């Protein structure tokens, strides 16, 4: 009886482990195949072999075939600008929701939460018209502006600010701390883990964002990586696949490497930011 149980248990285990690994292999295959192709000479792109010589030539050719350096700069400027604006604007707003009493507070907060459902990503036509009125078409500012006031960030920071002990807050006020000083010296330091978590989520979201930047940009000086890559990959000029996959990896590399190095932080940040 005991033996039978032990046997069925190990069969269980075997099925479990092989299921986990099968899924992992399926999940890794598309990316693994792309990485393999990118590091092998173009002549080997139709063959599945590990014997082919490794080369960086595809990366060099991809890098020179399109202004990727400029796209990189644009994306870095974009995500930095968005994150800084989000953290400042949303901290101020979250602080007001936590610390002050004012009329229509509940209604205003509900309106903030509405953005979790109806995001600017969907209101493309009207936001494009607004940008035209502001004269901002084809600027990096226009890509970021609709995301500066993030309902999600306000919500997240409000949750964190609410946990700040009232004694700390009052002590600082008695010391003669201004409201801004209070936010900066007491609330922000205590919200650092939340801000880091939100930062990772925000950076990876806007690094990967595509449709709005595609619509609003039309020149090399403003296009982020995702748009640059899509243009590079869809020009039917007979570019070899090994070069396209190399370009694809170039655009994803910073996030991918960041993720592999700081896996735990990534996973915890996404977890922290997602659980309400």
């Amino acid at each position, binding site marked *: 009886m005991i033996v039978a149980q032990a046997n069925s248990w190990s069969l269980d285990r075997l099925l*479990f*482990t092989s299921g*986990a*690994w099968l*899924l*992992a292999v399926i*999940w890794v*295959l*598309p*990316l693994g*195949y*792309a990485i393999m192709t990118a590091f092998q000479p173009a002549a080997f792109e*139709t063959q599945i072999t590990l014997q082919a010589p490794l080369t960086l030539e595809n990366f060099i050719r991809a890098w020179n075939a399109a202004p990727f350096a400029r796209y990189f700069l644009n994306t870095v400027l974009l995500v930095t600008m968005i994150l800084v604006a989000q953290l400042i*604007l949303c901290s101020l*707003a979250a*602080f007001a929701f936590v610390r*002050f*009493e*004012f009329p229509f507070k509940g209604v205003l907060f509900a309106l*903030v939460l*509405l*953005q979790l*459902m*109806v*995001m*600017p990503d*969907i*209101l*493309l*036509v*009207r*936001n494009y*018209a*607004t940008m035209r009125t502001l004269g901002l078409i084809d600027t990096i500012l226009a890509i970021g*502006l*609709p995301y*500066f*006031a993030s309902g999600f960030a306000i919500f997240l920071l409000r949750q964190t600010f609410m946990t700040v002990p009232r004694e700390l807050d009052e002590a600082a006020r008695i010391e003669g701390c201004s*409201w801004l000083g209070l936010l900066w010296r007491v609330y922000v330091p205590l919200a650092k883990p939340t801000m880091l978590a939100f930062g990772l989520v925000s950076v*990876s979201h806007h*690094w*990967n964002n595509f449709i709005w930047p595609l*619509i609003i940009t039309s020149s090399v000086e403003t296009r982020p990586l*995702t748009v640059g*890559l*899509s243009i590079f990959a*869809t020009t039917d000029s007979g570019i070899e*696949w090994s070069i396209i996959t190399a370009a*694809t990896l170039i*655009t994803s590399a910073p996030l*991918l490497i960041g*993720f592999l190095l700081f*896996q735990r932080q*990534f*996973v915890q940040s*996404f*977890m922290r930011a*997602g*659980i*309400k």
Partner: protein
Amino acid sequence: MIKREWMIALAFLAPALILLFSFTHYPAIQTVIDSFWSTARGRRPSLFIGLGNYARLLEDDIFRRAMINNAIYAAITIPASVALALAMALFVQGRLAGRSFVRMAYFTPTVLPLIAVANIWLFFYLPGFGLFEQIRGALGFDPRNWIGTPDTALYAVTAVTVWSQAGFFMIFYLAALQTIPPNLRDAAAIEGCSNLTFFRRVTWPLIMPTTLFISVNATINAFRTVDHIFVMTQGGPNNASMLLLYYIYEQGFRFWDTAYASALTVVMVVILALVGIGQFFLLDRKVHYK
């Protein structure tokens, strides 16, 4: 005295709220208004046409195709992503040989831009070249153009969506599984409760709020995740993979029919609002597990 506090609060709120209203609430309302007008063309100004754009919607075969496709897309991506995310979380939460590699394999697609994912899969599917086709070829199947065939294009892009988001949802299940007290497990073991029974009776009910949370997110994603369509199929062949948001883009920014695109956007906003209302009622009833 109270007035002063209102003023300070306003000063703190104003920058964020002005931007929020300018790019979320104002465009949402203005889109509804725009949808009752015609698109200005050349010297022909925009005219009030009432429900004209909506009447056109009902007659529009491509719109109908997009709605049906989007329904199929949602009907597959939501349950598949939820089920796979749960399976992944169960796989990596306990003892498993090579656990950190497996977890990394599941999660990695999440950090890739969907545009990059689209390129990777385009190559993966490529008839004659792609790994997928080579494997099928080795097994003796005829080559197939998965993306270029109307029968399979939608399913090909659907698979890509599931691949790219399941690992992301896995994280929330992992977090939820960690909150299940280990003594429940021990108690069940003493009672001689099988793994399957334990999952059905204890784990599944306890992680219900997470399942709902993930389902809502997967539903929203089913309507706004269309980046890969731009690279892989562009809605084709013959609108076989046309989805609502892609159709909005096409009408608004390829054909510059902004009024019609506004009417389409209203449909989208209504769908998302319904999801929001549904979430509110569902979560309200199930949330007492926390």
